[in-house]
């Protein structure tokens, strides 16, 4: 029973972070058909902002807010400077642009901050553990779980109830029609990037709090995981991104927990084999739609 509680908490806390990251990718994909590989660098930027806030003596909650805000603003700036001019180019051009932005930001972090990771001294309040039944759950895991669930509920409300939420969901199916309904493409894309950046900021803070440090390449692994999540969930599907996040976390945690020692070195490979199994059963992802389009 205790094992089950920690197992579930491990999945929910990691899956929640994956879901936030994947949603950030999926929102932008909905409007631009772009997998933004520079999304991870938005997380890193949020991490550095959090660190700067703490070092400057700003209250922790204010540093967190600033980090999320910077993530959102940086995403909007990224769209305006890097992606707007190539918006109508083909998918390969957009992808190349996102790689270029990611590498540029990594080099900037390395040269202007440090090639080395920087410890992020989060308040000691967040380093303890909470007893649940007979199991111990770390405070950071509890925060990750609650934060990701609250964000997902808030996002659902946004997508279900607000005009811009509807527009982004509709754009995932047919961007041109959404424009004909009176939504300006530039504004819709900027809103999508803003949401994506805010989500990257939140995920970045959760990531940094778990890891205890921020380094220039921090965003690389999570963005690859989020990319896999988006593919599992179905490209362009927002519920798919959430479900995919929890599914990938469940696969990873199950393999970490139960894989025999002799197979442990193959853990990542096995996780991807399971992902391939899911994709062979659902070639367009769990929630993806097979859409034909004119070329």
């Amino acid at each position, binding site marked *: 029973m205790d*094992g089950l509680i*920690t197992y579930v908490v*491990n999945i929910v*806390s*990691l899956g929640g*972070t994956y879901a936030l990251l994947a949603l950030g990718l999926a929102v932008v994909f909905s409007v631009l058909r772009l997998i933004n590989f520079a999304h991870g660098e938005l997380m890193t930027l949020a991490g550095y902002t959090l660190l700067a806030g703490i070092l400057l003596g700003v209250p922790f909650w204010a540093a967190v807010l600033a980090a999320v805000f910077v993530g959102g603003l940086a995403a909007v700036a990224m769209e305006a400077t890097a992606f707007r001019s190539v918006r109508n180019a083909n*998918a*390969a051009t957009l*992808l*190349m642009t996102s*790689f*270029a932005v990611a*590498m540029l930001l*990594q*080099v900037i972090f*390395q040269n202007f901050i*440090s*090639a*080395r*990771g*920087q*410890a992020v*001294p989060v308040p*000691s309040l967040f*380093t*303890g*553990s909470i007893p649940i039944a007979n199991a*111990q759950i*770390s*405070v*950071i*895991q509890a925060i990750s779980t609650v934060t990701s669930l609250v964000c997902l509920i808030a996002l659902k409300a946004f997508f279900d109830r607000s005009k811009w939420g509807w527009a982004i969901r509709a754009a995932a199916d047919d961007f041109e029609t959404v424009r004909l309904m009176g939504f300006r493409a530039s504004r819709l894309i900027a809103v999508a990037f803003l949401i994506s950046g805010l989500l990257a900021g939140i995920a970045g803070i959760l*990531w940094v709090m*778990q*890891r*205890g*440090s921020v*380094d*220039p*390449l*921090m965003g*690389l*692994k*999570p963005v690859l*995981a989020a990319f896999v999540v988006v593919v599992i969930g179905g*490209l362009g599907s927002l519920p798919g991104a959430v479900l995919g996040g929890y599914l990938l976390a469940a696969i990873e945690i199950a393999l*970490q*927990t139960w894989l025999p*020692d002799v197979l*442990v*070195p193959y*853990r*990542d490979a096995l996780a991807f084999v399971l992902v391939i199994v899911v994709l062979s059963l659902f*070639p367009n992802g769990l929630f993806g739609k*097979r*859409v*034909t*389009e*004119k*070329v």
Partner: protein
Amino acid sequence: MNSTKRNRMAGALVAVATGTLLLAACGSSGSTSAVSAAADDGAACTVKVGIASGQTGGLAYVDVPHLEGFQIWVDEVNANGGVDGKFLVETIVKDTRSDAAQSATVAAELLSEGISFLITPGDADPSIAAGQLAQEAGVPAMSWFGSAPVLPAAVGDFMFSNAFGDNAQARVLADYATEQGYKTAYTLGSPDSAYTSNLPRYFKKAFESNGGTVAGEGTFSMGQPNFNVIADEIKALNPQPDVIMTPAYEPDFPTFIKAIRGAGITAAVLGTDGIDSPTTLALGETAEGVVYTTAGILKNEGSMGEFFTKYNTKYGKDPETIYAITGYELGKILEAAVTQSQSCDPMALKDTITNLEGVQGITGTIGFKGGDRMAIREISLVQVKAGERTLVATVAPDPATVPAA
């Protein structure tokens, strides 16, 4: 003509691969910084040093400070007319982007420029890739600080490392654990690199030879999101281990120690030279008491204080890790080899380095004779106390008791 979204995404995935290759190609040009060669009068020859260094990417935290320290040495000797007053040093630096394949490409470019000596990244895998080309070309190569003892053997007699062997640091850690009265240990390694996979193995051998027991052996993937499952696994051990040994370094080490302390595990933690950085010190209460092996303790006093002044003059800041010092010491090794051989000939340099003894560095004396081309250095045991490095002991492990590579 119609195409499905699936086809479109397949195209996009191909673009991902193509992009990676293209960007790799774009990044290969590297930077060339030839030290301004002063007048050649009286200089027997110029020592041309090719440096394949991970200036960006995952190894930058090791390679960047090494290069900084090495360049201080270059400036110093050239200001005095070169090594032994006559052998000027010229450097050609190229970025390997911390990638093994790129390290080989960069090494091939450097070797084609007729270098006398090649410096390779501070890790075994890219050093093996670069070193194999140096071996073929008959040019001695030395890793910044690749500490896997399998490195020289994997390449051949032209490959050296400026670092002590991981088997030697594992012996020092195991002896320390035994002295502290620890009976049972848990080790955590990763198959992702020679460093992270072999160190727990060497530690186990040494600890068991001292009569200790390794009660559990965990595995992690470098860069994994969290260590909660591993913390649960350690927590489930009965009895709890007295000590946990891991070669995990940034960013994994901070994540790991936060996870185990968060889970209420209080066992002592032993680490290796990869965690000798301000990041570990800045972890606060979480890292209190952690003991690790390193090349020396970074303190602004004595001969190290002189280095601090030089470093500060050149870079406008204090060195952050001992790697800046060991980078400078690699220069001192080269200086000794050139002075003794009175030559820039790669073969003569290789023969001299193989038999070097008693080179005076900042952290102590360094030699290669009888060390299987791994540097024979003293190893410092350091403990984190109130966010500061505190010296526990300086040890020169007996080669006879060091586990075989």
